[in-house]
């Protein structure tokens, strides 16, 4: 039932987009261009160094593609509602969500599917396939299954990051800067191999804010690396579990934030 409703919402969003075809296409092209420049910058920088702590340029590209691909998948579902939560609350739209016969969390996610991430998705998928070919990564049923599972798990970690950083909106009504720092800026660290940084940062991104599980650990399985710092090699398989656990935790916290919701005047 909820799935049918979700498909309905997605259909409505597609219909809305077709009303503004020009704007949509322009947006997709702009995003494609932005991330293409980003990929080229990384490429230029690491090919200048030849290797980065034992990581070849193509391997670092793979790292970034993993990050962007999982982000694009989770952002389709969670970006619009949770990056704009404080605005939804300020404008009073959130009130209207609370009187729908649905869980507000589910309503937000289902009614805010964002098709525009097709740009990130296609670009990062293309780069990933290119890396797989260049690095001669063996792809069979099993490794493909693992790859997809890791990407989905990484997507859940990203979604949990967005969720966690949206929760303060229930209290302080303004959380944009917080989200910018703790989600978007912090993730800049995982563009490069974690082994580049000092111990404290390695521990921080493994246990405190475990963004390293988005790409650094799972990538090593496919790249046949053994760069596990002070941690156990089994960390390369943990991504799906970390993802599920964090997402569940974020969801529970989000609901308790909702309980505190005060609404705004009139």
């Amino acid at each position, binding site marked *: 039932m909820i799935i049918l409703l979700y498909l309905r919402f997605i259909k*409505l969003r597609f219909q*809305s987009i077709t009303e503004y075809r020009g704007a949509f296409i322009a947006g997709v092209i702009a995003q494609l261009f932005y991330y293409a420049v980003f990929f080229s910058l990384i490429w230029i920088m690491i090919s200048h160094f030849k290797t980065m702590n034992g990581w070849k340029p193509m391997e670092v590209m793979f790292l970034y593609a993993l990050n962007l691909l999982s982000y694009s998948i989770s952002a389709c579902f969670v970006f619009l509602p949770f990056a704009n939560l404080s605005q939804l609350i300020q404008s009073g*739209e959130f*009130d209207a969500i609370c*009187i729908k*016969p649905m869980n507000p969390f589910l309503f937000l996610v289902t009614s805010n599917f964002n098709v525009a991430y097709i740009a990130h998705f296609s670009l990062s998928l293309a780069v990933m396939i290119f890396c797989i070919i260049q690095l001669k990564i063996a792809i069979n049923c099993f490794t493909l299954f693992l790859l997809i599972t890791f990407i989905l798990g990484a997507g859940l970690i990203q979604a949990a990051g967005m969720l966690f950083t949206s929760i303060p909106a229930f209290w302080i009504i303004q959380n944009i800067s917080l989200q910018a720092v703790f989600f978007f800026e912090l993730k800049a660290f995982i563009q490069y191999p974690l082994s580049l940084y000092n111990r404290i940062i390695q521990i921080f991104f493994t246990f405190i804010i475990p963004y390293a599980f988005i790409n650094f650990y799972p990538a090593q399985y496919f790249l046949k690396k053994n760069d596990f710092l002070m941690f156990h090699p089994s960390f390369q398989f943990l991504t799906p579990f970390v993802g599920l656990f964090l997402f569940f935790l974020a969801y529970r916290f989000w609901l308790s934030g909702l309980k505190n919701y005060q609404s705004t005047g009139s």
Partner: protein
Amino acid sequence: MELIIVSNLHKIFKVLIRKKGLKGSLASFFFRKYKKVEAVNNISFSVNRGELVGYIGPNGAGKSTTIKILSGILVPSGGNVYVNGIIPYEQRKKNAFNIGVVFGQRSQLYWDLPVEETFDLYKRMFKIDNAKYKKNVELFIDLLDMNDFFGTPVRQLSLGQKMKANIAIALLHEPAILYLDEPTIGLDVVAKNNIRKFIKEINKERQTTIILTTHDMHDIEQICNRIILIDKGQLLYDGKIESFKNKYEGNCILSVVFKQEDTVFTHPQLKVIKKEGNKNIILFDRKNITPGEAITFIARNFETTDLQYKEPEIEEIVRKIYEGKNEKQE
């Protein structure tokens, strides 16, 4: 049958005390002081099935807060609320099926899509079966004249058309209760009348209980048979609209600007309640002297440059009642 029961309802908001100036801003950044504001202070009432209740009061009186508690958006700080046997904030989902809510300042429609699409979405969200959906859509199209714009993208609709569609959507799942928060705000006279007629019609046909907040006294007069008046979170009046009118509506106001500043004005029925230079605010009771007589008297005996007749506005009546209440307490 009592559909809505509110007893000893309280809602307290914590509001940050801000100090003036840069120094004050810095101080309140580090040391936060809050004061407690009682948005709703010990309100009790109950509403029977099929009643048309006007819930009125000045801005900031606590109307919206009450509506939000009744619809399950806010959790009260104290007291009990039952809507159709349910505690709304504990069972939001279940409560949603019993109520329809229209916020006059906010549209529920998809901006870029035809009205029809939002209807269809609500059909799915509220699990309305085909027969019921078809029956209701036909009824609303007929009663609200929606035929012309049912297939038009919402962004091309007028404010009145959007309001009609919003009210229709709120009623699509046949809720027992409809909350209307300023449903006629910003509309022209014709659109206002259509909407008022429709609300009464629905109430008559389906026994839908309606709670309406508004600042438009005509809304109240034409739709409601009972009013609940609140101010500063407290209940001031709850009863039949006729007795409210008899009690307070006699008072009318004339605003007169005399040519000479030192004009001395006396009349047994006309009382000067305020004087600002040449401008005199005169209060009289319509039961003792008609507005026509009052105006004629002033025009005959004095030289005036301006004369305005005002019916008392709801805000003024509310103030007066409130002041009267304070005096009694003292």
